């Protein structure tokens, strides 16, 4: 892997052009279907149900014609957090198990004046494993959505889905705009970061590893990067405001779309399949 190739590990906010079914779905329908599948993944209460959820997410990646390895590379940056989270959950969650399920392992530990237990119960074990599977499935699923949908499509989808809540003063259009802008700038900022690291490395900065625990040194190494990165981000934000104002942007009030195609048969099929999938995951009596 190349030393400064960051864009590679940023899969969030990227769009991979294609002609698959997923690419061609109406973004409103796609978003609805993804939210429905998401519900299945985060609520399923069984090992097999979660694995089925993950498999479905990976199946969608295949359907979109995107290499699975590329999507999984988006998981890599959070692996350290995931490991810490899992270890702690595994060792301690059982202490607070409210379900009273069977204790599989208990180990009292004395650390100087402190005494506590490592406890693993059936239910805490399940929550730990499910936590990992769910997070990976969530990342895969959301990456698949963004990798196959243009930002404008996504914004329109979010706006449509939030439209019913306008009555209770939810600013659907504004929320969609904020999300779209944030997404749009993830790859831009990653590019900028890459450029700055290259530039500072070219005048002697060393981003090698000073040792994992030398936080102060690591943080100081980052100053030549973070300062110009933020200066650039603010400058870009100001330019964006100027550009929007000079186009008379005033938010969503009174704004109408130039095209408003009705959902086609393909779109309704997608939503229906997602609903069937989620109901199945909920209602099948999984043995584990």
């Amino acid at each position, binding site marked *: 892997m190349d030393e400064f*190739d960051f*864009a*590679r590990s940023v899969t969030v906010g990227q769009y991979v052009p294609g002609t698959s079914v997923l690419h061609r779905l109406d973004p409103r329908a796609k978003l609805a279907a993804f939210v429905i599948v998401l519900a299945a993944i985060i609520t399923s209460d069984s090992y097999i149900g979660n694995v089925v959820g993950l498999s479905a997410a990976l199946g969608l990646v295949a359907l979109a014609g995107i290499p699975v390895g590329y999507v999984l590379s988006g998981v890599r940056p959070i692996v350290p957090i995931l490991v810490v989270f899992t270890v702690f959950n595994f060792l301690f969650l059982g202490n607070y198990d409210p379900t009273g399920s069977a204790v599989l392992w208990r180990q009292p530990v004395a650390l100087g004046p402190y005494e506590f237990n490592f406890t693993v119960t059936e239910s805490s074990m399940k929550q730990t494993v499910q936590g990992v599977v769910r997070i990976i499935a969530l990342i895969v699923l959301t990456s698949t959505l963004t990798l196959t949908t243009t930002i404008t499509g996504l914004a329109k989808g979010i706006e449509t889905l939030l439209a019913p809540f306008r009555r209770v003063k939810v600013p659907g259009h504004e929320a969609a705009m904020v999300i779209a802008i944030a997404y749009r700038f993830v790859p831009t900022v990653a590019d900028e970061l890459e450029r700055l690291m290259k*530039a*500072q490395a070219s005048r*002697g900065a060393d981003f090698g590893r000073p040792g994992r625990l030398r936080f102060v040194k690591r943080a100081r190494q980052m100053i030549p*990067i973070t300062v*110009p990165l933020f200066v650039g981000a603010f400058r870009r934000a100001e330019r964006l405001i100027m550009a929007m104002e000079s186009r008379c942007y005033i938010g969503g009030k009174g704004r109408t779309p130039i095209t408003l195609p009705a959902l086609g048969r393909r779109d309704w099929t997608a939503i229906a399949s997602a609903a069937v999938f989620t109901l199945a995951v909920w209602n099948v009596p999984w043995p584990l």
Partner: protein
Amino acid sequence: MSEKVVEIQDLWHWYLRGTPLQTVALQGAELEIQSDDLAAIMGHTGSGKSSLIQHLNGILRPHRGTVRVFGNDLADPKLDVRPLRRMVGLVFQQPEMQLFDPTVGDDVAFGPRQLGGTPEEVRRRVRTAMERVGLSFEGFKDRYTFGLSGGEMRRVALAGVLALEPRLLVLDEPTAGLDPRGRRQLLESLRTIHAEGEMAVVIVSHDMDVVAELARRVWVLAGGRTVMRGSVREIFARVEELRELGLGIPQVSELAYELRRAGRDVRADVLTADELAEALWTNSTSPAA
């Protein structure tokens, strides 16, 4: 004595290699730089100029082909590129964006401090570098970096690289976005730096007038390949080929070319207004003469 300091042969590089967004940036590029060179790399946007020069100090590594810089083989994954980055000073596009320290002197001192010299040595390097780009050390070292004009910020950034005292200085689009005065001052500084004889200078540009004014040797890239090489006069005499590549020629060369097409007997390789005047004067076949 001049020696070959850069030798690039059949260089290939892909961006985002191994992802669905993979694109080829270089496919068989070549480049040679002598230790006393004053060279330019020209090419259309997307021709691979920036990718090529990022190989010179190991920011990018070759995916295929050979890159030798000061005797280091960049294709060797075990090569430590840090010493190389001190010998090759790379100034990126819009380098004023990379400034980070509130005071000018400290920003220029970033590189020398990383090298770990004594405070006196750092001070000497900062002073020399700032004066080389036409910023007086006393007048500017305590100025607020982000309050400078665009042209001044660019010269501060250039000084930040010069303070490493490299043996090869590479600049990507050094004059882009500068006003005429900033441009003239920058070119003047570069000419002086080269004339001092300690550095080879390579600029990347698609401004033909800058190339004609500064460079002696020219490399032309197109589609990630090296398609033309030669002295600046030879290259700008090949007008049709350059136009074919979507590149222009310096205004004076353009005028000479049009005059020749209109039937005047003008040499093909004029670069400056004075040369053109002289060529018109001596070779004039106009009936009025």
